[in-house]
């Protein structure tokens, strides 16, 4: 697996760059519908933008998982099947995983660009393309189980998180295709309910993959054994699992299901608060004990995650209350929620992991003490905050208009939210520039062999093994 993780990382970064560019196109088309409409219409831009964002998350997380498994081979605390991890079969399985995902990715992109749809929201491509995606997941899950030396050994919490994420994903992914059966597809209420039940689990599954990655990264940063099998990480795992199995209902509050489904969802959604609160509590205590790590890029990104968790937590609390949700639903407040979590939390965790992964080979790159990096990092977070607030503003404006008159002309609604969307696009441009200035150097570090990019001096001199962080 030595270099397979690089393939995943490079492809993930390219997906994010593409996704960001298409996000800008989508935002511009929202304001000026004629822009590029003959080249790529909005109904193709939106799913492609979303898919590239999701692929960034999955490919990036897979890259981190493969990297960390490899890095754990000589760690006596974690049971790793060294023989398997160093074998050609393991590498082949990881390559099959990569090939299947890239293959279906190209297929899906081709369909979107040519106006070939057929699936439901977020999985808008013709359903057969889901098969290679699912088989890729199975390869990933098998590789994980084999790498940890079977089910009998004492897995650390992050391994459970990764493995559970694969399992939940596969079940939920299958569920997301139930609409192809008339029992589900023929009844609109059942169909929408099951669709969003599965999407809730899919999102929870990728969150679990990322929280596992974050926990593992924390272990690498501070070598605290509590990150492996501590009570707290297992409590988080359990709550994450409950979340992935039951916490989907807030998506369907307004769908006319029988009443108690809504009440159960309301109750379970509230559990989410506890999960997030624990994350903050544990992590911030962790921060105090490892202030010396602040000079690392990875650490900075994890600090940003803390802030974004808090902000999104407040929004999530509000959206979990049905009486509030019903106004916010169908407005850009939901977009703010998804952008805040995918960019502010998920992407920051991945950036932390990816920066850690290259610093192992290029220690000088680890230091956050670089003016371009610092500027890009802070500006990125400020722009994201403006972006997020403007989306909430657009949502509130639309909610106010439609609750005063539900039959209001949609043109007037679009006109009223225009200033907010302009702010969103403006902040989006700054986000794009910042992301590019962080991602391009990172991408180059993955592409160019380590010794040719290693700079002399810098925060960690020419030290390359063991990793810079371990040396602290």
């Amino acid at each position, binding site marked *: 697996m030595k270099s397979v993780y690089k393939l995943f990382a490079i492809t993930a970064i390219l997906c994010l760059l593409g996704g960001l560019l298409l996000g800008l196109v989508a935002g511009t*088309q929202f304001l000026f519908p004629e822009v590029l409409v003959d080249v790529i219409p909005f109904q193709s831009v939106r799913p492609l933008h979303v898919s590239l964002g999701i692929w960034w998350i999955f490919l990036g997380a897979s890259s981190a998982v493969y990297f960390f498994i490899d890095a754990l081979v000589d760690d006596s605390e974690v049971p790793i099947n060294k023989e398997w991890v160093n074998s050609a079969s393991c590498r082949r399985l990881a390559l099959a995983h990569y090939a299947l995902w890239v293959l279906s990715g190209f297929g899906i992109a081709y369909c979107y660009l040519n106006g070939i749809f057929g699936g439901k929201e977020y999985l808008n491509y013709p359903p057969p393309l889901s098969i290679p995606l699912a088989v890729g997941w199975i390869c990933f899950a098998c590789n994980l189980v084999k790498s940890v030396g079977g089910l009998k050994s004492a897995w650390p919490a992050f391994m459970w998180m990764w493995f559970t994420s694969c399992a939940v994903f596969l079940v939920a992914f299958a569920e997301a295709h139930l609409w192809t059966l008339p029992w589900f597809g023929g009844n609109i209420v*059942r169909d929408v309910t099951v669709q969003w039940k599965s999407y809730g689990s899919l999102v929870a599954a990728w969150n679990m993959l990322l929280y596992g990655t974050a926990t593992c990264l924390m272990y690498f940063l501070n070598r605290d054994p509590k990150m492996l099998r501590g009570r707290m990480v297992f409590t988080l795992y359990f709550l994450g699992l409950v979340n992935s199995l039951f916490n989907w209902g807030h998506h369907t509050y307004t769908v*006319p299901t*029988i009443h108690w489904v*809504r009440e159960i969802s309301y109750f379970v959604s509230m559990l989410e608060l506890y999960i997030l609160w624990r994350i903050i509590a544990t992590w911030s205590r962790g921060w105090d004990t490892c202030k010396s790590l602040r000079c690392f890029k990875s650490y900075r990104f994890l600090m940003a995650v803390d802030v974004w968790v808090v902000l999104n937590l407040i929004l999530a609390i509000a959206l979990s209350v049905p009486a509030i949700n019903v106004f916010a639903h169908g407005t850009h407040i939901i977009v703010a929620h998804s952008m805040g979590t995918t960019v502010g939390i998920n992407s920051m965790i991945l950036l932390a992991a990816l920066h850690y992964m290259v610093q192992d080979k290029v220690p000088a790159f680890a230091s956050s003490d670089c003016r371009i990096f610092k500027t890009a990092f802070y500006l990125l977070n400020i722009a994201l905050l403006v972006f997020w607030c403007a989306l909430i503003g657009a949502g509130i404006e639309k909610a106010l208009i439609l609750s005063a008159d539900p039959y209001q002309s949609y043109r007037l609604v679009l006109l009223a939210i225009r200033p907010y969307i302009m702010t969103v696009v403006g902040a989006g441009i700054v986000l794009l520039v910042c992301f590019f200035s962080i991602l391009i150097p990172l991408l180059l570090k993955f592409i160019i062999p380590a010794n040719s990019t290693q700079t002399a001096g810098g925060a960690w001199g020419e030290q390359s093994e063991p990793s810079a962080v371990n040396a602290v």
Partner: protein
Amino acid sequence: MCPRITLYSILFILFFGYTGIIYTSATHFENSALTKDSSEYRGRLVFQQHNCVACHQIYGLGGHLGPDLTNVVSNPRKGEAYARAIIRGGASPMPKFNLTDTELDDLIAFLKQADSSGESPPINFKITPWGSIEVQHGNPGKT
């Protein structure tokens, strides 16, 4: 049995039970459109094949460039004829779709099914004292 295994077993039993209920009886809305040859079923495929959800919503779920379509056919200011006209002719930023007559009829049947299942946004919802809502089931009097 080890308490941890018991706990996880209970969790999975609850999950499968709840899933079973969601699949079979989570809605009062029943209709006759459960076959693949029904107009409503074909209509939802047309809706998906043209990715209408990139811009539109059903029950507030979907894109934000266009209006929610759950009740468009019974909207006093819009209605079926308006919906037919706009789908045929487009209205920037909505593109013009070259649909056959059958496809358009199926699409309208699908939108009627959506309309008869409930309201979105639920104008008549009631807020309960604990912050939940009561959503109206079905739209009596509508198609």
